[in-house]
C-alpha cells in the first residue's frame, strides 16, 4: 500500500501505520529532543542548586533566591526574628504592633 502522507517522515492523518517507521533504534528527532530535554534539566538543576532553592513551593520564594536576595523577607507581625519567614496563613494583617495601615495601592493617578 503506498504511503499517501504528504510528509514522508510523518504518519498520515488517518493513522494508518506502515512499516517505514519500524526501525530498530529511536529516530533522530527523538534523540534531538532527548538531548535538549537533558540540557534543560541540567540547567534547571544547576540554577536551583546555585540559588539554594529547595524545589518548587513557597519555600523557594521566601529564601531570597527569587529576588536575588536584595530584600529581607517581610515580617508583618513583628514577631519574627527567627529567620523572618512569614507563613502565608498569617498574611492577613491581624493587628500587629504597627496598627492599622492604609490599603495597599491607594489612589493612583
Amino acid at each position: 500500500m503506498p504511503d499517501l502522507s504528504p510528509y514522508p517522515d510523518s504518519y498520515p492523518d488517518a493513522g494508518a501505520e506502515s512499516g517505514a517507521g519500524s526501525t530498530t533504534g529511536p529516530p533522530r528527532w527523538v534523540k534531538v529532543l532527548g538531548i535538549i530535554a537533558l540540557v534543560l534539566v541540567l540547567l534547571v538543576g544547576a540554577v536551583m542548586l546555585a540559588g539554594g532553592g529547595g524545589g518548587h513551593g513557597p519555600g523557594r520564594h521566601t529564601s531570597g533566591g527569587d529576588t536575588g536576595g536584595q530584600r529581607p523577607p517581610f515580617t508583618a507581625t513583628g514577631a519574627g526574628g527567627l529567620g523572618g519567614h512569614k507563613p502565608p496563613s498569617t498574611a492577613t494583617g491581624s493587628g500587629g504592633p504597627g496598627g492599622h495601615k492604609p490599603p495597599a495601592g491607594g489612589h493612583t493617578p
Partner: protein
Amino acid sequence: MASRPRLRKFVLTVHVTSSVGWLGAVAVFLALSVVGLTSRDAQVVRGVYLAMESAGWVVLVPLSLASLLTGLVQSLGTKWGLLRHYWVLVKLLINVVAGIVLLMYMQTLGYLADRAADTTLPSGDLSAVRSPSPVLHAAVGMLLLLVAATLSVYKPRGMTRYGQRKQHEQRTAPAAIDAATPARPRPSGTPS
C-alpha cells in the same frame, strides 16, 4: 457499536480543546506574569497575582487534568496505543511532567497571592509582591505545550521497541491461526 466512533470523536474533541485551551491559558498566564513584573501600578500588580492563583485552580489545573485523561483514553482506545509510538510517548511525558510541575507550583502561586493580598505591606514597595518566577514557569510551560501540539499535528515516525513487537505479533498472529486451523471441506456449489 455505532456509538463507538461517535464516542471516539467526542473524546478527541475534548482532548484537542482541553490541550489547546491549556496552551492558550498558559499564554495568558505569561502575559499576566509579565504585567505583574513590569507594571508600576501597585493595584495592577497585586491584582495580577491574585488573578493568577484563581485562574490556576479554576482553569489551568482542570485543563491539564482533562488533557491528560482524555489523551490516555484516546490513545488506549485507538490503534496508536500509549507506548507504541515515540510521538505519543513524548506527549505523555510532557503532559505528566507539566501537570506535576503545575500542581507543585500552585503552592507558590498561593503564596504570591497571599503576599499580594497582604494589606500590611507598604503600598509603594512592589518588590515584596513581584516575582520573576511565574514568567519563567509560564514560558517553559508554553514551550513544552507547543512541542506537544506540534507532535500531534506532524506525528513524526518512529515506533518504540514495544510498538514494534506488538506490530510483529499482530502481523504474525493471523498467519499462525490460519496455519493451525485445519482446512474445512468446502461445501458444494460455493464459488471458488
